[in-house]
């Protein structure tokens, strides 16, 4: 009978429970507020478009800064993006247009040729580095190689300005010096980022294709001759 009574009215049994004084019960009960606020933090749907664009631009600019002052850091590797390489590739290809050979059917690199050389070359170098057992991921490597083209792009801008003043021996010497310096800078910057991902007995094998890649791009910049 008592059991039936207890069953019919729930929690009746609990009223009989008493907590003795000897066992202190204390503590905090906090409801974790994570999930709801995390959703709010990651929901970028409501922010103004300007904010979205500026965030990406700031990330790209930050990486440009890291290429300009290369020291062994993981900034480029941690949050990679391919906006910077795309921007640099398009700038390079556009600036290499307008050459003397452009009007003929042969000669200077077409826009598509520059694109193909840069992207196909980066992919081949990345594949090579991964086949040699590198620990870097595919897109991280593309990101680093693309961003490190920046010194060469700046060299191209300088070359075009120098070429405005004439294309004689002096301007050639100046252009040669600028392109050589920026080629060295690019190679040094990319090795600063990529060196840690290879075993020490294969580092030279992984670095040589990068050297060849920037050498070819430097060559394309150096031999650019404008229309008269």
């Amino acid at each position, binding site marked *: 009978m008592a059991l039936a009574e207890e069953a019919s009215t729930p929690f009746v049994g609990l009223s009989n429970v008493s907590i003795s004084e000897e066992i202190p019960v204390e503590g905090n009960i906090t409801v974790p507020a994570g999930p709801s606020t995390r959703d709010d933090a990651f929901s970028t749907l409501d922010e103004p478009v300007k904010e979205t664009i500026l965030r990406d631009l700031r990330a790209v600019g930050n990486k440009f800064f890291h290429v300009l002052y290369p020291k062994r850091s993981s900034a480029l590797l941690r949050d990679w993006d391919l906006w910077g390489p795309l921007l640099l590739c398009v700038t390079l290809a556009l600036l290499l247009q307008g050459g003397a050979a452009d009007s003929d059917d*042969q000669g200077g690199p077409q826009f598509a*040729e520059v694109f193909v050389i840069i992207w196909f070359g980066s992919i081949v170098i990345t594949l*090579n580095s991964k086949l040699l*057992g590198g620990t870097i991921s595919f897109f991280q490597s593309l990101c680093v190689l693309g961003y490190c083209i920046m010194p060469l792009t700046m060299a191209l801008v300088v070359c075009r300005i120098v070429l405005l003043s004439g294309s004689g021996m002096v301007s050639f010497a100046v252009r040669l010096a600028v392109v050589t310096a920026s080629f060295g800078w690019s190679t040094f910057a990319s090795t600063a980022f990529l060196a840690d991902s290879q075993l020490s*007995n294969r580092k*030279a*094998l992984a670095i040589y294709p990068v050297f060849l890649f920037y050498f070819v791009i430097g060559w*394309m910049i150096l*031999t650019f001759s404008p229309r008269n």
Partner: protein
Amino acid sequence: MASKNDPFQFQEFDEAGDLLEANRDAVTISIENEDLKSQRPRSTVGFAQDAADEEPLISDDREELLSGQKKSAPFWTFEYYQRFFDIETHHVKERILGSLAPWPGKNFIQAYLRKNPDLYGPFWICTTLVFAIAISGNIANFLQHYGNPGHKYTPDFRKVSIAATAIFSYAWFVPLGLWGLLLWRNNKILNLVSYSFMEIVCVYGYSLSVYIPAVVLWILPYEWLRWVTIAVALCLSGSVLVMTFWPALRDDHPKVIIATVSGIVLLNALLAVGCKMYFFSKPEPGKEPGLMVNSSPTVKAIKVTSP
């Protein structure tokens, strides 16, 4: 095998078994082990048998390791190709030096490859050669027309694609043909030496490395220098190839040997001379580039005077 070879171990096992049966709480065998180890150097027979006994254990491990290494992944996976990049910097250096300086009697495949052909060397040597030819061709073109104000230098980028096609097809299709030929002859005549396709590709790739300095030397616009470098490069790379394939062809019919060897050398020569002819135009006969600056005013003078 243990029971047959080593009396000591057999004894140990027996005693341990006896001890365990007699007294379950007994701690066993440390004394026996010491005796075993001290007895090993004493008797040479025992030592040899110990070594022979250790062999099966070690060779089991080694076999496991080796079988793990030789396990071949299917060719559409990434791991299959990773096998061909299992190489270190000093290996590549040794192989390139070995192809630049062939030693009579030293077979490239046996001396340097040692069953570890790689694709890194052939691929990057071919790529470097392609760009070296394109860049040197452009520089040579530029230097040839240097003093000439009428000629506007334009960088020729078609050279890259044409050079790439020529060199990569040489480095892939000729080894394919040679491998097929060796396979065919192998069916007819039992040869002791047989090369895998990757090894042949590897030899061909490394043999092209001697052309890279040759191509750089071709920038200087002197015909005699170009022909001399072609001859030297042809000798070096041809001898590497011939010495490598000689053991595989030695036992064959003389006509086949002559045909194959001359085919190898001829194709090599064709590539070299073809590259030179196509990418490096001959300077005008009798005129060195330095003279062209002086000759152009006279040409102009002649043009003015003639009606």
